[in-house]
């Protein structure tokens, strides 16, 4: 029972974390996932969050086995 946490692009490089596993706790929000994995109290400005590969806000509650991702503004195309 865990949560997979992913980081991409500049955020991945700054934190030097690609992917982490976090023990699941009931009622955990995306922001709390960020805090637990990075040790930082807030998300950098403009950071985007995806839960199970869909955009979400930092106050969303995550479920066990969810995949939570954090990344900077997208720059494709």
């Amino acid at each position, binding site marked *: 029972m865990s949560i997979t946490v*992913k980081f*991409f*692009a*500049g955020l991945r*490089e700054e934190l030097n974390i690609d992917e982490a596993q976090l023990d699941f706790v009931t009622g955990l929000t995306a922001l709390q996932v960020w805090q637990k994995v990075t040790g930082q109290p807030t998300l950098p400005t403009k950071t985007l969050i*995806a839960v199970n*590969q*869909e*955009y979400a806000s930092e106050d969303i509650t995550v479920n066990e086995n969810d995949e939570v*991702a954090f*990344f*900077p*503004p*997208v*720059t*494709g*195309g």
Partner: protein
Amino acid sequence: MAVYIKQSLFEPFSEVAQHQLQLEANIGKGQYGASTIFIGSMRDFNEACDVSAMTLEYYPGMTESALESIANEAKEKWPILDTLIVHRVGDIQPNDSIVLVAVWSAHRAAAYEANRYIMEALKSRAPFWKKEMTTSGGRWVEKNTPA
């Protein structure tokens, strides 16, 4: 409706031609009267600001499903027959094609408008990140140009 992430150089005209043959096989020839193709490629900024190459990162799984959602939205908004989205990832050289969007429809307005919609949505929502390689190292592109 197809979405492809390409890890190496792709040739946009042959991608479109190949997809169009499949479309004709599926729905019959002579069904579409209009098609629009957008190709975005890497410009060579060598002289201006020393960018010699680029790396494109993506989020395997989420990137494909974001592109599929965008294509579906276009199909709901306009009477289009088919779409093709191809996006390059990995190491990219100047002049390489980065993105291809093709739309087929009966009439031209839908083909133009849906194509532009897909590109704007892709730029704002599809998880891709560009890192430019310069003589002084790599730097992440901070935001996309609005148009």
